[in-house]
């Protein structure tokens, strides 16, 4: 009988070999990227099965939150609704993408334990699954983004290509954070709680719900050293017709290189063990 597939698994053969194996996992996941997409799609569909509005609930609940916070906090900060509503809407939507992908990252491998322990599916597939699932959610939220941009007249000033570039920077960074917490959460089950506390604190420390210009120049470091601020700014500023500071791109590029280097290194080193953690 002729065959087309070949599998070779061996013990450790030094760090370089482990990196090659990790790269092979990555390559295999890219070759079967449609599987990650199917799994993500299934997740979203199954979460809203049996509900009448279905995934539109994501949009509706998000829309209500945007309205409530936009009106109330705009009043509290004494800023006009016209400026503040789009600002908050974009902030909530894109920060939600960041925290959602990171928080759900904790479950990436734990949830997939059944599949990981009896199939040869690439581990990266499940990382992409989490990212894709959050992108599908984002697609629903974009309705709100568009509605707000059109209603308040920002849609003409918005720079969409730059915003798309910002989104790419955001995703590439959020993906490694999601994968890192996925690996650590598989081993230590306290991590999801810690991650959630951090993302919650980040939501307060980052100008999502409050205007960034309320921070005086003296305290700019609160913003400049906050990676979440840069992630958000790279997408939000161009959509509101503002420019993005060059140091934001620098910061995000450096973060991506260092972050992926670290995450991939850890993955290559303990990839064999992850399935035993579960």
């Amino acid at each position: 009988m002729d065959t087309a597939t070949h599998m070779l698994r061996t013990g450790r053969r030094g760090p370089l070999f482990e990196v090659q194996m990790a790269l092979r996992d990555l390559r295999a996941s890219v070759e079967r990227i449609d599987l990650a997409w199917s799994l993500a799609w299934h997740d979203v569909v199954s979460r809203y099965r049996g509900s009448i509005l279905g995934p539109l609930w994501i949009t509706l609940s998000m829309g209500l939150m945007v309205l409530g916070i936009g009106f109330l906090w705009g009043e509290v900060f004494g800023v006009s609704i016209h400026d503040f509503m789009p600002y908050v809407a974009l902030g909530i939507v894109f920060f939600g993408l960041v925290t959602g992908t990171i928080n759900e990252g904790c479950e990436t491998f734990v949830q997939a334990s059944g599949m990981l322990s009896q199939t040869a599916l690439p581990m990266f597939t499940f990382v992409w699954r989490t990212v894709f699932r959050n992108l599908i959610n984002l697609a629903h939220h974009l309705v709100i983004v568009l509605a707000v941009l059109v209603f308040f007249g920002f849609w003409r000033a918005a720079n969409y290509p730059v915003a798309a570039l910002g989104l790419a920077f955001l995703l590439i960074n959020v993906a490694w954070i999601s994968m890192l917490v996925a690996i650590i959460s598989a081993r230590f089950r306290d991590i999801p709680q810690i991650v959630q506390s951090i993302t919650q604190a980040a939501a307060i420390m980052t100008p999502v719900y409050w205007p960034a210009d309320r921070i005086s120049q003296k305290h700019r470091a609160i913003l400049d050293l906050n990676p979440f601020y840069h992630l958000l700014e790279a997408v939000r500023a161009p959509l509101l017709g503002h420019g993005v500071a060059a140091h934001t791109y620098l910061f995000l590029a450096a973060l991506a290189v260092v972050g992926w280097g670290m995450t991939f290194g850890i993955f290559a080193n303990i990839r064999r063990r992850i399935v035993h953690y579960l």
Partner: protein
Amino acid sequence: MKAPPVSISCRDLTLRFPVYGVDAKSLKKHLAKITVGGRVARSGGATEVTALAGLNLELKAGDRLGLVGHNGSGKTTLLRALSGAYEPDEGSIEVQGHIAALLDLNLGIDPSATGMDNIRLRGRIAGLSAREVDQRLPEIAEFSGLGAFLEMPVKTYSAGMQARLAFAAATAVEADVLLMDEWIAVGDADFQKIAHKRLLKLVERAGILVLASHDVELLRLYCNKVMRLEGGVASPVTDIKRLDELLAA
């Protein structure tokens, strides 16, 4: 280019499980005397169970290998290693051919999704493309015998119906190497009959079968070779006719 023939080759395969959150000192003494399970040892701060130790195995097309041994002797671990899920700590595993592991029928079954969606999902996990799944869908649906129930969530099924669905979906694969943990014919008497037939067809088509089972009669029926595992250590592969000697040893 002609692809190489179906084969399985394990050389000095050793697999250790790190066990976390176990105080080895208190457990070690007890476990060392028990016949089930692998050998427990402590290395580098983590408790380790040696599930397979120095296993050598060569199988070629036509081989139907039965695995026997106590609970925890390493049968399932070996199957999982052959499926590619577990990586060896030492030695190597080489498999030529498309592998299908029928280890857990409920793999990837989502109770809140409909029967149809579950068949799709299972097919995708098994490595079929979306189009291939759609092509096989009618055949799988018919085989399951679930009819209109396929449009309902799996959680509304009885246990037997769930088993039918899982079996139909899991066996809708083409494999050169078939790995099975127990003979998985399920369901009521009628269904078991056709399930047996379907499994046999699958086995005939596959180049190699590895079946772990406690059922001696079953092994005699479907296997031509047998290997015994004891605490992760494998006996030599012997002819199925000498199964009794092997079990008595």
